[in-house]
């Protein structure tokens, strides 16, 4: 195993270890915050599959996140806990199904146009929930009781319990990460990389590029659905705003902030984004100015994202010529 891969693996194991131990030390609030960050990390990684690995810059990814969140509430009984084994697949499936349908439309376009069309479609789905009685309209809808996993009479898992929820999120984060890593080294993953690098050539080599992109789009949508499921379970409240274009912009920002095409970067970006939001909003009422300024600075000065920062700093300290 090459040293770099080994180093990365060790770093990941260390992070996993910290995340696993954190609830033993953290307070209820910070546990919740960290769980939220992990959910966002899953969400950002799912988008990275499109943006970073397939070259599809989707500006409507929040739609799938939101559809799954709504599915959680709509599938769950009103005053009883939903069955995890029903609710979770339903959420992921509905997100993937919507991604499939949207994909049929948007994947016929390319480049800059793709960005706009994904935005427009996400906005359309936003209005479906915003303007129809389906999910409580613009006021949103509550999940009264969180899902649970029960076999026979024994309660195995209750998502209403913060600690059980935390570890479930951690588990899903690991599952999502491993799933994406495996996917990326599979023939499909390689084909997606080829599409990112040179779509035209993939076509002339005989790849049904559209179907491959659709497969990637659906996979990313489903994974965003997993994040949406977790988000709905965490706060028990779903409103159209979770699939607004701001949300799509934020998750895109997380991917860029961390550095796209690296998976780890997406997770780092999610962490940095949420923490920055916390810090800025505690400093001033006009915190969105700071957030905006930060975005502008990152775009202008840090094209590779935060994960390129150590490399850049090293380059700066050691200088261009000498080898570190």
């Amino acid at each position, binding site marked *: 195993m090459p040293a770099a891969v080994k180093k990365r693996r060790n770093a990941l194991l260390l992070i996993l270890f910290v995340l696993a131990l954190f609830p033993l030390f953290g307070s209820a609030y910070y546990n919740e915050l960290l769980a939220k960050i992990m959910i966002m990390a899953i969400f950002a990684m799912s988008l990275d599959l499109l943006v970073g690995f397939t070259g599809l810059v989707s500006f409507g990814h929040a739609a799938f996140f939101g559809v799954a969140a709504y599915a959680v509430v709509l599938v769950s009984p009103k005053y009883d806990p939903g069955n995890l084994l029903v609710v979770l697949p339903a959420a992921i499936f509905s997100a993937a199904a919507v991604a499939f349908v949207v994909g049929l439309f948007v994947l016929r376009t390319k480049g800059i146009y793709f960005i706009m069309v994904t935005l427009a479609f996400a906005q359309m789905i936003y209005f479906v929930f915003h303007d129809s009685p389906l999910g409580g309209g613009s006021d949103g809808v509550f999940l009264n009781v969180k899902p649970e996993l029960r076999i026979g009479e024994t309660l195995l898992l209750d998502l209403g319990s913060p600690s059980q929820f935390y570890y479930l999120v951690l588990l899903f984060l690991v599952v999502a990460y491993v799933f994406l890593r495996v996917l990326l080294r599979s023939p499909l993953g390689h084909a997606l990389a080829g599409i990112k*690098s040179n779509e035209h050539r993939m076509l*002339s080599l005989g790849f049904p590029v559209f179907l491959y992109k659709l497969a990637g789009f659906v996979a990313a949508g489903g994974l965003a659905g997993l994040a949406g499921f977790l988000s709905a379970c965490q706060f028990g409240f779903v409103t159209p705003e979770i699939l607004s274009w701001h949300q799509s912009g934020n998750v895109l920002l997380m991917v860029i902030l961390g550095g796209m095409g690296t998976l780890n970067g997406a997770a780092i970006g999610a962490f940095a984004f949420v923490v920055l939001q916390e810090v800025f909003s505690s400093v001033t009422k006009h915190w969105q100015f700071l957030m905006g300024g930060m975005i502008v600075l990152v775009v202008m000065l840090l094209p590779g994202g935060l994960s390129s920062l150590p490399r850049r700093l090293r380059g700066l300290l050691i200088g261009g010529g000498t080898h570190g």
Partner: protein
Amino acid sequence: MAELVLTAKGLSRRFGGLFANKDVSLDLHRGVLHAVLGPNGAGKSTLINLLSGDLPPTNGQILYRDQDISGWSPDKRSRAGIGRSYQRTNIFPAFTAFENCRLAAQSRAPRALRILSKAQGYADLAEAADRALEQAGLAERRDMVASTLSHGEQRQLEIAMVLATRPSVLLLDEPLAGMGSEESQAMVALLQKLSPDHAILLVEHDMDAVFAVADVITVMVAGQVLESGPPEQIRASIAVQEAYLGGGESDNE
């Protein structure tokens, strides 16, 4: 006569009011290397694009083994066995030469649903890729990143990728463009080697090369076929000399 593989019947392609191709017909047979000559703007690249599916024809028909494929998409044609190379190098620059070819080979055995398996784990793809690199004379460059290869080597890689898809028809768009003489010779040798097993359409500027390898030559001027026949006939043709060989010198690079 050798097996007829691909036929173009009365192909036309119009851009606005201009005909890039007008009523072009030709046949490609297995084991026959068919070259297309013509000055810049004669419509040679358009012809390849029409045959490969990159452009839909305005009029006309394309038959592949007696099947009408005029409406097929480029990827479907490719999977059916029509491989093409590009005039401008069109590769995956960040991948190694081997990965370029392995990906090309993968298009024949997509296994897209096996997302749990490792792409590198398939021996058949690796074999096909290595064979293609070997054929194209790039075996030594196997693990170099494509963008770091020399121009000539990238042209070879371009061909190797097509070969890795095991096509029966090869549509080659100026494979010699920008090559040094040594590289050109290697490429000509490669073409000769490939000729017996494939139906090849070669668009090329390099006269010497064309007359050296072609079995049939079609000369195009202003989007139309001027003359078609064996090299001797073309060399002897007065029409060709007047229209092309005479006036064409000046705009040859």
